[in-house]
């Protein structure tokens, strides 16, 4: 029943998906945290930049961002991320860049809503013992904010995992590209779709369960 799978590197394709998700997950958590810090900073220019960034980026379709990364950044501006001669590596890196830039906007907003759950007295007490802005944020406010938004961040990371399929648009050999290829070559449309759907559930379901458990473990009691 499953002989049509022969000759296709299913695990390899999903491995690329996992790499896309992990690298852009880390990238967007870092960038999103920096953006969230900018959004609450006392410097108007930084606040303004982060606000504009979030409102522009989250309203552009991901496909447009990824295709622009490939056609715009790489082909027109010659930004090749150190992989000018290797088309596969270049597409892979550009896809991570696009996914990171896009997802960071959502991470930023999740963290910002977390910052709003931290009582203002926590920051006041931190300032009162002489901590500076960066220390107040990194030692007191963000650690508490993160713990309260693990749930929303899980949603963002699950969405990111599924969004990696958009990378197929610029030829990254991840799961969705292989699915398209298999559907074109084989006659098992429903079965192939089911296999790939199952593959994504296998990736995202544990993410949700594990992070749900973590969220309960680290919740801040007030």
């Amino acid at each position, binding site marked *: 029943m499953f002989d049509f799978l022969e000759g296709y590197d299913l695990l390899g394709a999903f491995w690329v998906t996992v790499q896309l998700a992990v690298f852009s997950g880390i990238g967007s958590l870092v960038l999103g945290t920096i953006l969230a810090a900018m959004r609450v900073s006392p410097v108007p220019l930084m606040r303004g930049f982060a606000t504009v960034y979030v409102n522009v980026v989250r309203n552009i379709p991901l496909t447009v961002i990824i295709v622009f990364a490939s056609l715009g950044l790489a082909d027109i501006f010659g930004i090749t991320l150190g992989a000018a001669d290797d088309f596969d590596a270049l597409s892979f890196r550009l896809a991570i860049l696009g996914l990171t830039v896009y997802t960071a906007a959502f991470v930023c907003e999740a963290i910002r809503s977390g910052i709003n759950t931290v009582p203002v007295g926590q920051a006041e007490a931190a300032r009162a013992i002489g901590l500076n802005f960066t220390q107040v944020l990194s030692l007191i406010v963000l*650690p508490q904010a993160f713990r309260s938004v693990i749930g929303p961040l899980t949603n963002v990371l699950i969405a990111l995992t599924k969004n990696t399929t958009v990378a197929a648009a610029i030829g990254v050999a991840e799961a969705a590209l292989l699915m398209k290829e298999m559907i074109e070559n084989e006659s098992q449309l429903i079965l192939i779709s089911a296999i790939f759907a199952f593959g994504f559930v296998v990736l995202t379901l544990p993410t949700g369960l594990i992070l749900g458990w973590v969220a309960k473990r680290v919740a801040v009691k007030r």
Partner: protein
Amino acid sequence: MSGVSVTKETDDARPASGDLVVLSNVNKHFGALHVLQDIDLTIARGEVVVVIGPSGSGKSTLCRAINRLEPIDSGSISLDGKPLPAEGKELARLRADVGMVFQSFNLFAHKTVLENVTLGQIKVRKKDKALADEFARTLLDRVGVANQADKYPAQLSGGQQQRVAIARALAMEPKVMLFDEPTSALDPEMINEVLEVMQQLARDGMTMVVVTHEMGFARSAANRVVFMADGQIVEEATPEQFFTNPRSDRAKDFLSKILHH
């Protein structure tokens, strides 16, 4: 009274006596509300000043202005001869010298009691962790919560939390301690355990500014009572004089409402 001391030059090697906190002509608005009006107040080293007054009189704002948690619109505040800097590193350094105890404790909820007391020592005073731990345990012992060191704030009673908050402020070895209604959020049976710690601090010679409704504490621990109403300092007197023979009508009215039933 305060006009003299604002002109003092910055000088690190000053004698152990003299004026520690000087507020001069301080004004502050919250929108249309003129919450601090031409406040002049001088607090001497080792002095315990209790600020009392009706709600909305500006006493908490006054307290918070001293370490610039509330910025002021005009006037000047100086600490140990140094004017309060506007923002940034200088301000952070100065805040470390001013201990603050809040009405709602504000212990860092994600850190243990011990970590609450060591954080400032390690991150601001750059102390070695072992030394910070040792000092923290000494302070926790002093305020009577040494056996709670490894718990989280939410596991402690209000009175215990507030005593930890006092230890956290003392850990910075501050020049002056500010108390912003430290017992107002406590259950009645826990008020005394906090007041006792404060009494002990006062006896040890700590300079203190205490905003409170605890008249008993004002009587027994204060060197001076400052009565505020409608954003102004209406009366300053020794506790004895203030409670037995207030001069202003506003103070008489206030005392009659709180003492006679």
